[in-house]
């Protein structure tokens, strides 16, 4: 028998969904493991919500199939799928108390009120809202309503919990707190979470794995670290975090290294990737925090340029360096590292050091 962690909870195969002329999902395939915090990340209109709603049973695919722990759920309506959803606007029933809301799913599954009540109380304790059981949803704050929605969806013990941008209505501080709470809740309950968001930071914070989506397709699937450090293409590199996206031409590929040049003739060496050949005009991505400035050229790749702007952004200082006859680079220096790393005044000549491996070659 397979270890539990490797069992596939949701297996999506070649899913196609069209709304009139608009294709929301083009042949999407992915396997979500049991007990995993899985995030669908992408800009609005990328198909992430459609995919979630198709798993929930609110939409029906035109092609492809969805397996839940090995069983096809194509023919099952939403009320027969052992998955529950936390809605973006929570959709708490306004005419019921918090407790009645949480009891609803249990009652619909056939529990009597007497059986459902202690379970519902237990769920409310889990989200630390025990004292709020008899309030109406209108008397709750946004964060509390969010937690009730979670308790309501978790009460029937679903095999998979679907979360449709549940944190987007909360303010920043509350959102950060809820991110950690959700992550902890997932670990405690051991239920597979499928989380939809357009917020890349949220996705990086919480997920075990992320599928980055755009235009109805999965662009890249991997751990947060994979996706941030080794983006597969220009879209992923640009969407996740800040980056310097620079057009390059590939001059030579030897020993797995690609020798490229930027505009202005600046030479850059990075790891070769499949699908990029000599003579191609492609892009590289360099994260601003992977670049250093120095007064003299260093022994690594050093690109000469001029500091054109410095911006103080709290924890970091952001410098903009115009390479000689080349592109503009953004460089991020942590304030805590100022002792070791230099910041240069406006207009000064400087050398930008790009350590090997900092630049990532991308397919377009």
């Amino acid at each position, binding site marked *: 028998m397979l270890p539990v962690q490797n069992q596939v909870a949701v297996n999506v195969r070649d899913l196609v969904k069209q709304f009139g002329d608009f294709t929301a999902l083009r042949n999407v395939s992915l396997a979500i493991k049991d007990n995993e915090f899985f995030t669908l990340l992408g800009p609005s209109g990328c198909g992430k919500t459609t995919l979630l709603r198709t798993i929930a049973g609110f939409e029906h695919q035109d092609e492809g199939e969805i397996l839940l722990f090995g069983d096809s759920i194509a023919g099952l309506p939403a*009320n027969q799928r052992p998955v529950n959803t936390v*809605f973006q606007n929570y959709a708490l029933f306004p005419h019921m108390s918090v407790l009645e809301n949480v009891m609803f799913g249990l009652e619909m599954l056939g529990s009597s009120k007497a059986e459902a009540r202690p379970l519902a109380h237990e769920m409310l304790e889990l989200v630390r809202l025990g004292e709020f059981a008899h309030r109406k949803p209108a008397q709750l704050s946004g964060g509390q309503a969010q937690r009730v929605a979670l308790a309501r969806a978790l009460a029937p013990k679903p095999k998979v919990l679907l979360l449709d941008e549940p944190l987007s209505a909360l303010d920043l501080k509350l959102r950060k707190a809820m991110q950690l709470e959700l992550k902890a809740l997932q670990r405690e309950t051991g239920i597979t979470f499928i989380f939809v968001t357009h917020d890349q930071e949220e996705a990086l914070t919480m997920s075990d794995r992320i599928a980055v989506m755009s235009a109805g397709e999965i662009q890249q699937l991997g751990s947060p670290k994979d996706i941030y450090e080794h983006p597969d293409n220009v879209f992923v590199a640009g969407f996740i975090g800040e980056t310097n996206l620079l057009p390059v031409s590939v001059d030579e590929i030897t020993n797995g290294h690609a020798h490229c040049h930027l505009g202005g003739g600046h030479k850059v060496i990075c790891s070769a990737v499949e699908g990029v050949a000599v003579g191609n005009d492609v892009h590289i991505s360099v994260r601003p925090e992977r670049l250093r400035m120095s007064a003299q050229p260093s022994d690594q790749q050093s690109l000469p340029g001029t500091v054109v702007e410095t911006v103080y952004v709290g924890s970091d200082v952001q410098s903009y360096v115009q390479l000689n006859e080349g592109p503009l680079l953004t460089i991020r220096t942590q304030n805590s590292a100022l002792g070791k790393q230099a910041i240069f005044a406006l207009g000064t000549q400087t050398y930008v050091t790009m350590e090997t491996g900092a630049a990532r070659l991308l397919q377009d």
Partner: protein
Amino acid sequence: MILYAPLVIVTIYSFNDSKSIITWQGFSLRWYFDMFTGPESAKFKVAASNSFIIAIVSATVATTIATLAATAIVRGGAARYRTASLGLLSLPLMVPEIVTAVATLIFFNTIGFSRGLTTIILAHIVFCIPFAYLPIAARMQGIEDTYEQAAMDLYATKRQTFTRILLPLMMPGIISGYLLAFIVSLDDFIITNFVKGAGVETLPTAIFGAVKMGIKPNIMAISTALLLVSVVFVTISYFVAKADNKNK
């Protein structure tokens, strides 16, 4: 305000302690007692009870139909059918009532239906539906469909979703629609007068019949009482709709 002057005058003179309707002889409730004990009281009591039976039955049936129609029209189907259905449903509001009255009469005659209480109730149900429908549909449109999705997601059947979620959420609209339908039925004269059988009177037709032989002060008292019922119902309907808006 000037438009309400006749109503105000009727109301004031209903408290007149005089057999004449023009000379004021001091305040009295005699015509209100006369409503229950006077020589014509038996006739008006029967008419009033007819009116209330008709209003209750037709408002109940019309509201039920309107609720189901609103659920189906607002939730199901394409947008163009929605507009068409709304137009069709509100048609009785635009068609001159006399036309509806004549048409209904011809219809009952053609199918050989003998006129009486039943014909009045049937006719009232039909023209009460749009009055009940409008507030219910307005309410329904304000209910996001995520509530139903959430209920379905939590394993409720379609029927459970309707009775446990939709119906309670629609209730303010339903009450408002019911009261409106009730009042419209209670006050109707034209259609009732056409389709009522001989000897069956409702309050409005009975008042009309009495007025034909000259206006007596007891008519003013009855009219004022009817006015009061209408005002109370419309006010309740208004506050139900308003209180509910605050809740959302």
